[in-house]
């Protein structure tokens, strides 16, 4: 079970949150111009990395606000959380290259 820092409410138990997948996927500005390949790629294809993952969470049983989490998917260690629109916190080399 993870302890996650909501940028608005502070540290809370993971069961209060819902994970909503990869972050920073921008909706295409011209959806009607996309071909099947591009549209499928936007909708379904994901990085799914073993290591540092930038993802979206929502504080469903709390303030119900969305935010971003940087978490290592191999160790489940949460490196940082930040609000939508905020600049992405930089990780140290050590954090980025944590052994899987």
């Amino acid at each position, binding site marked *: *079970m*993870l302890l996650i820092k909501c940028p608005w409410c502070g540290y809370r138990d*993971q*069961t209060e949150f*819902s*994970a909503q*997948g990869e972050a920073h996927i921008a909706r295409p500005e011209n959806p009607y111009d996309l071909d*099947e*390949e591009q*549209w*499928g*790629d936007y*909708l*379904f*294809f*994901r*990085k*799914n*990395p*073993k290591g540092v*993952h930038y*993802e979206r*969470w929502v504080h469903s049983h709390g303030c119900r606000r969305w935010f971003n989490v940087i978490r290592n*998917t*191999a*160790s*489940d260690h949460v490196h940082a959380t930040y609000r939508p629109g905020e600049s992405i916190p930089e990780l140290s080399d050590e954090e980025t290259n944590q052994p*899987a």
Partner: protein
Amino acid sequence: MAVTPKTYSIFSLARNALNYHQGWQKAWRDAEPKRDYEVVIVGGGGHGLATAYYLARECGIQDVAVVEKGWLGGGNTGRNTTIVRSNYLWDESAGIYEHAMKLWEGLSTDLNYNVMFSQRGLLHLAHSVHDMQEIGRRGNAIYLNGIDSEFVTPQQVREMVPFINLDCRYPVHGALLQKRGGTARHDAVAWGYARAADSLGVDIIQNCEVTGFHIENNTVKGVETTRGRIGAGKVGCVVAGHCSVLAEMAGFRLPIESFPLQALVSEPVKPILDCVVMSGAIHAYISQSDKGELVIGAGSDAYLSYSQRGSFDIIEHTVGPIVELYPIFSRLKMLRQWGGIVDVTVDRSPLISKTPVNNLFFNCGWGTGGFKATPGSGHVFAHSIKAGDMHPIAEPFSINRFNTGALIDEGAAAAVAH
């Protein structure tokens, strides 16, 4: 060189018993990797070993290596709840899971290895009007595909499981029964396929992790491993839990996310439950192993992770309904709990497919329910690799369906964890 294994039989058992069991030979060789193979299979789980076996047995390709980063069957093959069934909604799924079921039915004889396949019957409980509508639709679809499927009343459920609490927080309104469903010994499936493949000349190479692909002109030429480069005419990746990691090495992405899925077993008790009971609505399913342990499958965690652990709250959400439905189990002690990483596609159907790289094939994304498909998956994948073109049963499971939109939505029939 392959050695012809001595056939297992009642006579070999008696002969070895008289010899204090000193005379058994190893089930497979510990092969050293050669420089080149016609086909390299990445992943020594059930599906990978089955692929190698059918390549050697039915496709005439004996020059095959199976490379495995750990030990055989140490991934999801050894972590599942051993349930076998073919009661899926869509025609494409019925095609592959029923193909597997038919192979299961002759598997022990085929492999000369007892995989302890037991068609003890499988109940899928319905707890609400909505559940009843779901099993009504799916049960009829299964029946129309020529697969056994019966509706049973709560009273019939009680006859099969006398200690079930039908009128509880999760009332049982009915159930879908597949009599041919059941369980098989998961380790034995990996070992049986390994032994049979080895005897046909397949090299099984354990402790050999793939670290990259050797790709020239968009065509795969081999794999880089912790034991050196191994050349290959064709490469089949049959991994669970790490298929996105392998795809990244080959330079493309997959429509997959990976989650931990947990299971747990109780202390062994005398025979009490002689069928499999599952319930999609409350994410709990249960059966009794031949050792006597109750094997309980839980839901998956809702966040992406490769940690092979899983959360405590998921166990609580699983064990709660189990105790509610089967109060008699409330005093059982749980012995072990573990997690496996399941590679889940958005439509809950697998990927058996060509990839953007020539001669590189992927068979993955089996999500929470790959074990049941092991023989069928290996069989159609072997034929696809041989032909260089997908087998008709495998064809609909192409990665391409996420671009064309021809999804095979098995969210309901996959029964758990969604």
